[in-house]
């Protein structure tokens, strides 16, 4: 992968706001009366490794397909590498590598021939460097030995690796991996993590979806949790995992003053039963108390709410099984 990029889009001009590799606003997709994705506002900062976490059927793949311009949103907008889709697709997609909905290849061709075919359609790959790019990608995912074998005979893990190789044919600014460790053995999983780590180190942005929290925890800097087609939490992984309690239930009779004070202090809070609910994202419990007490708000009681990512995700998955929507409070709390 040396001379393959004849020219690359420069990173968006350095502004004060964090540069986003992908940004969606009010994304919604319906199939008939089924709402697959609703009100998804996703911010994927450049250089981040974002894990998209959600149980099966939570809208991860649909969101990814809309991000890549494969599916047209029913409502909402997508910006990919600073370009609005679908018009900007031709400019941004060459810089995006993707493995969506499992690897797709021709069974009658060998792994190498399959990649050559993919490479032939890559805009950023010069014709002369296709051969080398294919070999490099195969090497990188550990398929060099099996490259001459027909795809038909590949194991699930090998197919997955080839899909990853296709995404790595060109140095990318953004790599989107939908459940990349599906069907991989522990060694393969480690290799994928290593590839993601390398991409991150090289400055690429990575969006990786998974239904396994452990997977996300191991590789990601950012996380977005999807549930029933909506993003219920997103932010830096460290922040979301920081403690097992990210919200504080403050019981007070002076709700209005408390809300004003907290909002003035840029602490997110909203009214709840008998008081306010304070998000402990970017702040601490003592800071909240101090702000409230200084303003003369009477605090009757303060209780930490257990809404850590793990807790949240566990409840989401449990709710999926028991079909109870008792988690709504928890979901809201994590916002």
């Amino acid at each position, binding site marked *: 992968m040396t001379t393959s990029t004849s020219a690359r889009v420069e990173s968006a001009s350095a502004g004060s706001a964090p540069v986003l590799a992908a940004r969606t606003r009010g994304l919604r997709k319906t199939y008939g009366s089924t709402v697959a994705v609703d009100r998804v506002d996703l911010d994927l900062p450049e250089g981040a490794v974002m894990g998209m976490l959600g149980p099966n059927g939570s809208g991860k793949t649909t969101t990814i397909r809309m991000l890549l311009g*494969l*599916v047209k949103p029913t409502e909402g907008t997508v910006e990919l590498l600073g370009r609005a889709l679908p018009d900007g697709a031709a400019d941004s997609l060459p810089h995006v590598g993707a493995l969506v909905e499992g690897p797709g290849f021709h069974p009658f061709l060998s792994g190498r021939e399959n990649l050559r075919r993919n490479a032939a359609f890559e805009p950023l790959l010069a*014709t002369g460097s296709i051969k080398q790019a294919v070999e490099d990608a195969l090497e990188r995912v550990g398929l060099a030995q099996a490259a001459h074998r027909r795809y038909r005979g590949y194991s699930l893990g090998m197919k997955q690796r080839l899909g990853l190789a296709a995404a790595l044919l060109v140095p990318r600014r953004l790599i989107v991996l939908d459940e990349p460790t599906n069907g991989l053995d522990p060694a393969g999983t480690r290799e994928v993590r290593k590839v993601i780590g390398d991409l991150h180190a090289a400055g690429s942005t990575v969006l990786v979806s998974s239904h396994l929290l452990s997977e996300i925890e191991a590789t990601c800097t950012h996380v977005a949790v999807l549930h029933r087609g909506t993003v219920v939490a997103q932010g830096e992984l460290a922040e979301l995992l920081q403690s097992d309690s990210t919200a504080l239930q403050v019981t007070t009779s002076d709700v209005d003053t408390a809300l004003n004070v907290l909002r003035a202090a840029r602490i997110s809070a909203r009214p709840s039963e008998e008081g306010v609910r304070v998000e402990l994202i970017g702040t601490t419990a003592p800071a909240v108390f101090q702000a409230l007490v200084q303003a003369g708000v009477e605090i009757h009681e303060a209780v930490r709410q257990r809404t850590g990512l793990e807790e949240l995700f566990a409840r989401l998955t449990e709710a999926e099984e028991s079909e109870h929507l008792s988690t709504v409070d928890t979901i809201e709390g994590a916002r």
Partner: protein
Amino acid sequence: MTTAVATRAPLARQLRSELRWILRRPRTVIGLGLLCVVPILAGVGLWFAVDNTQGPAGPGLAAIIAGNGLVLPIFTMFLSLPLLLPLVGAIWAADGLAGEANSGTLRGLMVAPVGRIRLLGVKAFGIAVMSLFAVTLMALVGAITGVALFGMDGMLTVSGTTLPVGAALGRIALTIVLVTFQVWAVAAVALAISACTEHPLVVMAATMAGIIVFAVLGAFSSLDWLQPYLITSAWDGLADVMRDPMPVDGLWNSTALAACYLVIGLSLAAIRLVTKDG
């Protein structure tokens, strides 16, 4: 912020890759092989028929085959046009979009990205070249078989005149072009169906069913008003290439009708592909 970025891979590279992909498919090779067998079988069958009766045998073109080997490629092409060649075109059309969608490779092309109209162009090109190749191959094998079995003393037309070898080869070339164009028309419609489904089999079944239905409709005299619109009915008129002098009206009509099918098929395919979820 953008510095002259290539947003599309070179077209020639895409077309080459497409042809390579079609040719690497085992069913393509087998299909082309079987198409080569058709003129040989037809030639051998006619040879026995001519030999046994010591004279002209069979109807139409077959009646003039004795000592007239260059008729065989034309005869074979007309023999294959009603079913075999449309089937071959439909298979390529089916694999082109429905097959790629089915194997999950279509979305790979879409995110490369290959623009959707460009993608249709690449697919249409592949099918067009392969159809031309298939018909030419068939004609070539037919010519060789015909000359080997029946000799080559120019070409006796159905009008009774004899064309010199050069003119005869010209007629064969013209037939290749006319027949190929008809296959393109069928394949364009098949491509439109292909853009609507993920199941290649549906494309082939629908195309073949359409052709059979059209042929049946063309057989009812009460539906005569429908004839000018049926592509299958126009195929009979192509036999005019074997007349001397050659009446061109029928040939033009059937070619113009095929052009309509081609344009409609490609348009529908484009409309569907642009809005399709990948």
